[in-house]
């Protein structure tokens, strides 16, 4: 979908005497060096402008806690995009999941059944994802439109279910779980870490990941290699929906409430992080580490803005400029990393 110059599309070039270091640099990890540098630059800016208000542990936890909800979405989105698709509905499905989870909370026979809330939310996310996937894979509807339709429909559905009110969750067990922490790290951040780790393994160490990359790289060739491409695409959107369900639980915990407006425009944040993270919008290439770095970059940026009491309009302009610069830095290094091996 992009005007990327195809002739500039980096292919692995042959390593002659590729030392270990070089191998790493040229690998997917190497492509993320540009991002790490961008992140470090931002951290320096934060430290210089706000001193230890920026660097203290609480602030860092604030940043990662905020990052974790869209982070989980972005992990699912990474798979969908690598597989050659896009999912505009995740934010809205998140909202729907949060509404259904809070409705479930009201119905709970006993407070100790609270994990049911989570299961229900995940099921809602999964179901929405499966519907997306079926419409896209078997109905041959272009992903952009199918998930746009789901975006609109899921929001409407959430409004009807919630009667457009925000429901507060008062289920003790759930709140303690979601607001708790383990080894000093908040539950939400743990979830993000676990989802990212699972995503990394799934993408790099399983047949599922391998198929995803193959489909995004050349769908027809993958089909002719004997892989059930349509079914796999359903799985991809199901995964996207599942992460939306997880994020829905997380946001419900974080805000102790469920409402149809939860997650509005989160799809854009997730897509932006994935793309800044070096995943090709056209599919076939991407990394989980890049996505995590992309998410961190955006959230550190927002934190720096708040710390420095910047006018929101100025923030907007700066943010626009920084997105372009981040993509440029990331590209520069992606190209270099590949060329050098």
């Amino acid at each position: 979908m992009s005007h990327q110059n195809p002739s500039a599309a980096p292919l692995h070039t042959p390593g002659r005497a590729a030392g270990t270091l070089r191998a790493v640099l040229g690998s997917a990890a190497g492509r993320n060096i540009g991002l790490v540098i961008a992140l470090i630059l931002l951290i320096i800016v934060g430290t210089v402008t706000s001193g230890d208000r920026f660097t203290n542990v609480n602030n860092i936890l604030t940043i990662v806690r905020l990052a974790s909800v869209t982070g989980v979405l972005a992990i699912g989105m990474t798979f969908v995009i690598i597989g050659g698709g896009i999912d505009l509905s995740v934010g809205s499905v998140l909202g729907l999941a949060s509404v259904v989870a809070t409705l479930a909370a009201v119905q709970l026979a006993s407070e100790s059944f609270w994990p049911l809330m989570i299961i229900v939310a995940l099921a809602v996310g999964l179901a929405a994802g499966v519907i997306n996937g079926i419409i896209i894979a078997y109905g041959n509807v272009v992903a952009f439109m199918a998930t746009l339709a789901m975006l609109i429909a899921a929001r409407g559905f959430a409004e009807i279910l919630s009667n457009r009110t925000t429901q507060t969750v008062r289920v003790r067990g759930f709140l303690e779980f979601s607001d708790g922490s383990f080894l000093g790290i908040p539950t939400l951040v743990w979830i993000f870490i676990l989802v990212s780790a699972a995503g990394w393994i799934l993408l790099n160490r399983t047949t599922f990941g391998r198929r995803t990359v193959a489909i995004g790289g050349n769908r027809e060739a993958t089909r002719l290699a004997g892989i059930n491409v349509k079914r796999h695409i359903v799985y991809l959107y199901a995964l996207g929906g599942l992460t939306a369900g997880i994020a829905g639980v997380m946001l419900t915990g974080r805000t102790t409430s469920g409402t149809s407006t939860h997650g509005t425009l989160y799809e854009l944040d997730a897509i932006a992080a994935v793309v800044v993270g070096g995943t090709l919008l056209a599919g076939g290439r991407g990394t989980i580490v890049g996505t995590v770095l992309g998410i961190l970059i955006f959230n550190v940026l927002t934190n720096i803005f708040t710390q420095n009491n910047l006018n929101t309009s100025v923030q907007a302009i700066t943010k626009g400029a920084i997105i372009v610069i981040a993509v440029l830095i990331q590209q520069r290094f992606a190209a270099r990393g590949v060329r050098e091996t």
Partner: protein
Amino acid sequence: GLLVGCTSGTTDPADSGPTNNAENEETGDTIVIGFSGPAADHGWLGAINSAAIAEAAKYPDIDLRVAEGTNDASLQISQVEGFINDNVDAIVLLPTDGAALTDVATKAMEAGIPVINVDREFSSTFAARVTILGDNYGMGVSAGTYICEQVGDNPDAIIAEIAGIDSLPLTQDRSRGFADALDDCGLEVSNRVAADFTVAGGEAVTSQLLSAAPQIDAIWNHDDDQGLGVLAAIDSAGRDEFIMVGGAGSKNAMELIQSGDSVLEATVIYPSTQAADGIRLARLVAQDKALSDLVEVEVPNRIVLNAPVVDADNVEKYLPTAFTS
């Protein structure tokens, strides 16, 4: 709740009329106030922000931190967490969603930071030291009552409603108040559309509404900001058989009411100075001062602002505090 007509918030503190209290105005210890509100993507919210900032600027003892306006509850939570981390002296919070920000506000209170809850109410009374609210239900009632007075003698009157963003609780409160008031005089809403608080949205839904309803007796438009678009659509359709009542109370709307040459006959005030009041109250609370003109030695917990109807007769009185959309 205690009703206090409080519409003079942006005037100079030195001569702020009946609430003047020299002791309160005296510069005290410098306090840091954190302020966070929704994205200023709307005239009324823009006015909320600028009034708050202007108010803070008047007091040399206020150091105001303004977080990026956002419509994302999660981001706003992290902003409040930031204020807690920085250990500010008070937080003025206009939540994007009252319920969603309750928990973090409670944490701030627990950390000893008084929270002033503005406009959209938390779901727990422990989450705020002071709650200052506009009266959304009351707004609907005022608008409905006014329309009943004007067209109530016609039992078949066609009443249209142009709501704001439908998924916001405040919109539902307004609509409920409106419906209840109309019910009192035996009327009901026959056509209802919802816009999005933007001028363009107001124009778009109104042009559709007007062609869906060829004859209307009265319209209540929830918001004067989108009202600009509503009026543009009405003008462009050349319709004038009805009266219209606005909402929020923008300067624009009041000037039109004053001039009397449009269908807009009245508007219901929804004060855009709530956050400015919040800043003042935060200062008083943080400096352990009391609200003047009350015998009570502490600032009250809950202040609900009035939702008066402005029409040609009393517009002079309200014009000076109206906001520019």
